[in-house]
């Protein structure tokens, strides 16, 4: 069965290193860090006191400032990303003419909402919620869209699952256009404490910009981040027909589960290898055709070393020439939004023909034998990218993007 090709024709993003495509691309390729000390709530008793946080989300030009100001942070981020993506793709003014769906990655919509409310003195968690709208339903109604809208979570792999599902809806002709990606504004006291008490976070509190150091010998955990990215996806033939700019084709998706433990990383690498191979096979390419890998690499010793072994297995001798980097060194780990922002990093590499760096990579871990792009972006021919996203609980995903 030959399924229609699907491509990305619009981008909207809110990230710790910029809120427009050009700004994010420039900052990512110059190695800018968005990580700093958390100031939006008291952190004295938190083991980790740093994160890449979003202080302010600007109201999109196409929206009412008063209405936007009344929204919760995650509603603002999602709305902003969706509107900007639709504007970028040329669908905003014509959005009533097509069945536009939404697939949004977000793991903690309700808990974040209840936590923020309770810490502000509210009692929403103790009150009847009734048939309250979900974040995706609110976004759909707010933007006046008519396609189906769902949210999903596979922890840090959510964004890749969202893109894969949107691609299927397009191939099934359930939608004409689909917004897909993930948004997460989860740097809250509870999550910072939860991950901190898990001993998963970096405690390099006095050097925030140097704390996220994937593949480096001196890493000591990941750094939380927040933000998101949404993409307008449509069938390639439709995009061509309306002469839309296609940033990339969503060429392949792969997914698997470790079925090992809800927190502890699996020592068995076969499922993650399988997810990468599925994605490469789905794209109909040979592993040697991949030009850049955006690694999941969160800056934890166990995870980084495991991924290096996975990449060596999947790519064989090609790994010696294949640039690999982890943009989490700059953005921090955006949790459920990580995969979508890293898909954006891949698009930037295709668009600019430059590979973003892993910053803070001063002493590469010898157990992570890869062709690192350390500290500075590199010019490179990039036509096909692979982006790994592995989630807590053992979700493994890989997304292959190809120049359209």
């Amino acid at each position, binding site marked *: 069965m030959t399924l229609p090709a699907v491509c990305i024709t619009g981008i909207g993003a809110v990230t710790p290193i910029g809120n427009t495509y050009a700004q994010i691309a420039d900052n990512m390729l110059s190695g800018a860090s968005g990580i700093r000390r958390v100031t939006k709530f008291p952190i004295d008793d938190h083991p980790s006191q740093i994160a890449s946080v979003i202080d302010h989300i600007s109201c999109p030009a196409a929206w009412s400032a008063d209405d936007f100001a009344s929204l919760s942070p995650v509603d603002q981020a999602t709305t902003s990303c969706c509107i900007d993506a639709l504007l970028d793709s040329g669908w905003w003014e014509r959005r009533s003419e097509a069945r536009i769906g939404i697939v949004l990655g977000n793991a903690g919509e309700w808990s974040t909402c209840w936590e923020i409310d309770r810490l502000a003195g509210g009692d929403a968690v103790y009150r009847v919620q009734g048939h309250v709208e979900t974040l995706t339903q609110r976004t759909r109604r707010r933007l006046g869209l*008519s396609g189906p809208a769902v949210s999903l979570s596979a922890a840090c*792999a959510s964004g890749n699952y969202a893109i894969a599902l949107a691609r299927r809806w397009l191939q099934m002709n359930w939608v004409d256009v689909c917004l897909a990606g993930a948004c997460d504004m989860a740097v809250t006291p509870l999550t910072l404490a939860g991950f901190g008490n898990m001993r998963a976070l970096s405690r390099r509190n006095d050097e925030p910009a140097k704390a996220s150091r994937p593949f480096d010998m001196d890493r000591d955990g990941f750094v939380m981040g927040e933000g998101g990215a949404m993409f307008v996806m449509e069938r390639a033939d439709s995009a061509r027909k309306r002469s839309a700019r296609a940033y990339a084709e969503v060429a392949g998706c792969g997914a698997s589960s470790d079925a090992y433990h809800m927190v502890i990383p699996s020592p068995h690498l076969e499922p993650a290898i*399988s997810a990468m191979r599925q994605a490469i096979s789905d794209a109909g390419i040979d592993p040697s055709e991949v030009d850049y890998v955006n690694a999941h690499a969160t800056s934890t010793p166990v995870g980084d070393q495991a991924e290096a072994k996975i990449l060596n297995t999947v790519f064989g001798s090609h790994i010696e020439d294949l640039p690999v980097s982890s943009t989490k060194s700059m953005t921090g780990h955006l949790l459920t939004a990580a995969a979508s922002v890293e898909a954006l990093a891949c698009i930037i590499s295709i668009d600019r023909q430059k590979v973003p760096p892993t910053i803070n990579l001063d002493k590469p871990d010898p157990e992570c034998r890869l062709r690192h792009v350390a500290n500075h972006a590199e010019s490179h021919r990039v036509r096909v990218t692979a982006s790994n996203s592995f989630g807590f609980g053992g979700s493994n995903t890989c997304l292959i993007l190809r120049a359209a």
Partner: protein
Amino acid sequence: MSLRVAACGVLGADAETIARWRKEPINFAGESLSVSFLRHADEQTVVALRAVLAAVSPQGWNEMSFRDWGVIAAGNFLGRSIMAQTVERLIQEGAWGVSPHFIPHQSLHAMSGTISQALKIHGPNFGVSGGPNASLDAFLVASAMMMDRQLPGLWLVLSGHDSECIPPRPSASAPPPTCRAVALAMTHPNAGEPGIHVSVGCSLPNAGPAESLAYLPEFHISNLAEVLKDDPPAPAQTWRLGDTHWLEVETLLAAMEGAA
């Protein structure tokens, strides 16, 4: 897009039963899971896993491998009670009071992750929606996941409470409502294969969504539970999934022996 319900488990449990199930050992495919496996799990996860096992046993699938299957789980306000307790501890004790188990076991993907671990499922697993319309959204996702026939089967697990489960305030105590779960083992149907078939489709392209779907009743998880337990089977029934899709459940009977 049509799928066959190869097995189903429908369960409800009160708080006492859930507490007992949480401590009981779980055996599957000759392996015993640790007795602490469900210690930190949300009550919906406990009931959902039991519903899956309730679907497995009558089919004689206890030794079957679900290795290549997928799992989609749609809870309803998963983790709310623990969330309330955790935020109160955060307020009283500060960061120290937050359990490291909270995030992994109370997030939207916790239920599907736990089921994948219990049944050793290595296909995709993720959580869907988590809100009041979770079951509706789950069918839209499940159908798409099975579209290209790469997965041999998919567990679609839906859970929630009889009425909204509002956590008791720290000073109060009230029994929570019954927690329910429906676990469906969905497979690709062969033509005319007897059993329960589920079809999902989008509204007719030429008609406005409102025109083509307006006459259908809105789907609710209780509708499905009723159909699954009907004996003799009910005629085909169709519901509206939001304002874009429909869901049809039909029971195909085995052909009469010797019939033309």
